[in-house]
């Protein structure tokens, strides 16, 4: 008897603590059921899932670090251009004949380095991260456009190489990048929930004055958000190049609003202090399936934005009722 009591309370505790990500999961299931009913033939076939899993990892690498940033009370809109910068450097190095592993390391360095610069400017310049990173998004994109004159780069060198096959080949019939994205998410979940960094991110987002008074180096934590987003953007960029075998000067552009929407669809509120990494990854999944699913369900591509918007609004309403803001 006592045992069932504890198992009931621990289940309800689990639900209470994971309300946001569970309601996101519920949302995903409902949406997939709708698709399944609309077109059973397509949605019982693995092909559609494989198609989504090819590009979903790119979104996950962008969304997960953004969850940390938003939870910490900041926002970073520079990631699309940062993604293009890092993958541009990667593509150029590959073209020059550098081993792809080294190219990856340099690309990560570029992404994180840009994050350091943005973080220092936002924190020590006392700027709004929203506006400053928006500026950086245009600035970096402009920089790329000027230097490349809009020309893309083909990176066929990596095709069939070990580097490509391990990172973006096929593993057990699934795109290998999905495994890397899952691993990345898993590590980030542990860091967010169990590591002192994750706790500090929440404290800083919750009340930076309190965090500072308790000896947390608030500036350092805030700078780290932008570095982390830079890391995610560089990984997203490299994977995008590996998937497409080419780099465009517009790489990343399309992710700006969808990645942000995924964070909030996932159940991380806008006010900071609380967030969910699993929810963010699920949010990215919802948005990705939305894009593919609407067309696969038999509607024309004109409906994609309409349904995407609908999903965002509905999920926000759902989260509004399931989560309360404490002051």
């Amino acid at each position, binding site marked *: 008897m006592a045992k069932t009591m504890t198992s009931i309370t621990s289940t309800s505790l689990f639900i209470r603590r994971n309300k946001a990500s569970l309601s996101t999961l519920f949302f995903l299931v409902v949406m997939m059921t709708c698709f399944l009913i609309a077109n059973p033939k397509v949605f019982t076939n693995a092909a559609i899932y494989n198609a989504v899993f090819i590009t979903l990892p790119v979104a996950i690498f962008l969304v997960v670090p953004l969850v940390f940033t938003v939870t910490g009370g900041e926002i970073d809109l520079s990631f699309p251009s940062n993604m293009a910068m890092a993958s541009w450097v990667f593509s150029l190095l590959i073209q020059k004949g550098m081993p792809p592993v080294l190219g990856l390391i340099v690309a990560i360095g570029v992404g994180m380095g840009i994050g350091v610069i943005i973080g220092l400017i936002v924190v020590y310049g006392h700027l709004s991260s929203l506006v400053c990173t928006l500026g950086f998004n245009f600035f970096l994109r402009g920089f790329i456009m000027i230097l490349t004159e809009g020309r893309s780069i083909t990176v066929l060198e990596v095709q069939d190489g070990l580097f490509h096959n391990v990172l973006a080949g096929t593993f057990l019939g699934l795109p290998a990048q999905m495994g890397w994205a899952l691993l990345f998410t898993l590590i980030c979940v542990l860091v967010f929930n169990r590591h002192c960094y994750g706790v500090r991110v*929440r404290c800083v987002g*919750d009340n930076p004055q309190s*965090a500072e008074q308790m000896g947390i180096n608030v500036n350092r934590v805030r700078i780290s958000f932008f570095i982390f987003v830079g890391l995610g953007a560089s990984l997203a960029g490299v994977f995008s190049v590996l998937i497409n075998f080419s780099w465009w000067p517009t790489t990343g552009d399309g992710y700006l609003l969808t990645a942000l929407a995924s964070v909030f669809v996932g159940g991380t509120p806008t006010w900071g202090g*609380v967030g969910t990494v699993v929810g963010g990854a699920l949010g990215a999944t919802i948005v990705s399936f939305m894009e593919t699913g609407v067309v696969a369900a038999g509607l024309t591509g004109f409906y994609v934005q309409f349904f995407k918007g609908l999903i965002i609004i509905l999920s926000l309403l759902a989260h509004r009722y399931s989560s309360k*803001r*404490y002051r």
Partner: protein
Amino acid sequence: MKSPIITLQDISKSFGNVYALDGVSLQVKAGEVVGLIGDNGAGKSTLIKILAGVYTPDSGAIRLKDQPVTDWNASRSRQSGIETVFQDRALVVQQTIVRNIFMGRETAGSSASLLSRLGFIDHKSQYAEAERLMRDIGFTSEVFTPDSIVGTLSGGERQGVAIARALYFDAELIILDEPTTALSLTETEKVFSFVRNVKASGRSVVFIGHNIYHVFGIADRFVVLDRGKVVLECTKEDYQTPEELIGFMQQVAQSEGGTPSGSSEE
């Protein structure tokens, strides 16, 4: 002669062109309760934030156990055994009680495993510690656990969390900034018995309040601040009743019109 825990010498701090503190010196010895009194805007909270390392003074020196210190900050202050219960309580209200108690020292209470050395948190042991602490300071409610969100607690209960945090780390000096503001009578009495316990265990307390009756009952020694300056340091032998102390403070307040102090809060 008891040894000093911390000594502030000639501390000045200004915000813009307003002098919050103007050449203030303060020494706290082991095992004493210092009552810091002053009107609103006297500089009490600024002085506390300097002790706690939140503010760095513009000039003056800080000595810890007669050793001069540089790079004074909030983290250093806590590592040196100074815990502060701030006036605004310094809580993060969307987080659990455990998270609040261990805020800024997240890996404390962990075993020396590899994971904890990598910065991962041992939630189980922290939960147990928080539970014990809450019992110690008289949290008897069944309604909340260490995993409860602080935002769901009442004002007095939140103050209890802030005090529990100060108590956990075996501080040598505990600073309480207006700890009885907005508390009920029983909660206020709880805070007083807490201060007496801390003193009995040989640790020191700096107690800030503008209710002189509260401060008088609890402190061994008084420091009166007025407009950024120490205007009186005395013991209970010098001023034997709170009324005498109030009389002195009224004198100070009246004399200000005639003798401009050179600094203004307005």
